[in-house]
């Protein structure tokens, strides 16, 4: 029998992921496609926000959505009905998307003719933020019923995103959610984050969010 040898690898597990993510950004740039990764807890309103966004932007650009869920394809059908090109990825129980899975979604969607693509990540405040998907920008959605203490409990996601959407402001009066307290807690983790309060249901604040997208895509 051959003798056992030790082979030193010393490789960070996320090194390959970063490589794939950077490649994805290059591929997307070559097609002039802008990818935004949307993360939140289950039910905070990712799909509803995407529908409002698609409605606001579909006359001026071609939009695609990669939906990732553990199971089912209801979200993909919802955004498709709103006018986006959509694919549904199933993660088979995994709690986040990495760059390789995102790339598979991009390939399946076909992005050559798309200007803007959203990745609706798995509903989870913890794991998705640990993985670079290859998106140009990262957005988190926190909804009013979840509470203004979430930045204290899940600091990592709030410290890493470019935009924080605060959704469901239409029901603010029924909860003890304090927007200024939330902002103070978020700024401690991430002083440059853009905070946009919206109601995906009534459309309140959507214009601010959509304008941010337009500006980002101009300078891409």
């Amino acid at each position: 029998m051959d003798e056992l040898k030790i082979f030193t690898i010393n490789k960070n597990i996320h090194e390959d992921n970063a490589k794939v993510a950077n490649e994805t950004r290059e591929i997307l740039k070559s097609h002039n496609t802008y990818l935004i990764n949307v993360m939140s807890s289950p039910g905070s309103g990712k799909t509803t926000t995407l529908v409002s966004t698609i409605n606001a932007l579909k006359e001026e650009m071609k939009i695609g959505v990669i939906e990732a869920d553990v199971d089912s394809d209801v979200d993909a059908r919802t955004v498709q009905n709103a006018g986006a090109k959509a694919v549904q990825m199933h993660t088979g129980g995994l709690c986040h998307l990495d760059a390789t899975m995102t790339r598979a979604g991009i390939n399946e969607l076909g992005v050559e003719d798309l200007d803007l693509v959203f990745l609706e990540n798995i509903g989870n405040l913890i794991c998705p933020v640990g993985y670079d998907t290859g998106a140009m920008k990262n957005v988190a959605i926190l909804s009013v019923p979840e509470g203004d203490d979430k930045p204290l409990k899940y600091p990592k996601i709030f410290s890493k995103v470019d935009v924080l959407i605060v959704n469901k402001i239409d029901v603010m009066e029924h909860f003890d959610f304090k927007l200024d307290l939330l902002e103070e807690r978020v700024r401690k983790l991430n002083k440059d984050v853009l905070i946009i309060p919206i109601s995906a249901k009534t459309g309140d604040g959507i214009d601010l969010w959509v304008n941010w997208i337009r500006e980002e895509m101009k300078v891409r």
Partner: protein
Amino acid sequence: MHELGIVYEVIKIVDGFVKENNLTKVDTIVLEIGQLSQAIPRFIEDCYPAAVSETAYKDTKLEIISLPANGKCKLCNEVYNIINHRKICPKCNGEDFTLISGQEFNIKEIVGY
């Protein structure tokens, strides 16, 4: 589950190394996991057998070296475990530290031929 995805990633990287270096057998995979990394060693161990069961690594052993979440106090240079001491220096009560270990998730080495 988070850990399962991580184990698949480990196997992918090991497999790449094995092919590149023409190894015939991997006896052990050694991982270094920091206390602050998003993976929990016990869960990694639990899902490892399932992840390798239908691969060339089904007899490969897994060894995990746990690395503490250590910070170095910016005031008095004391090195302390920031989880056990809730981020506060046990020597001078300072709250400012530089993280020196704990975020790792590395494939340290593999043993094989």
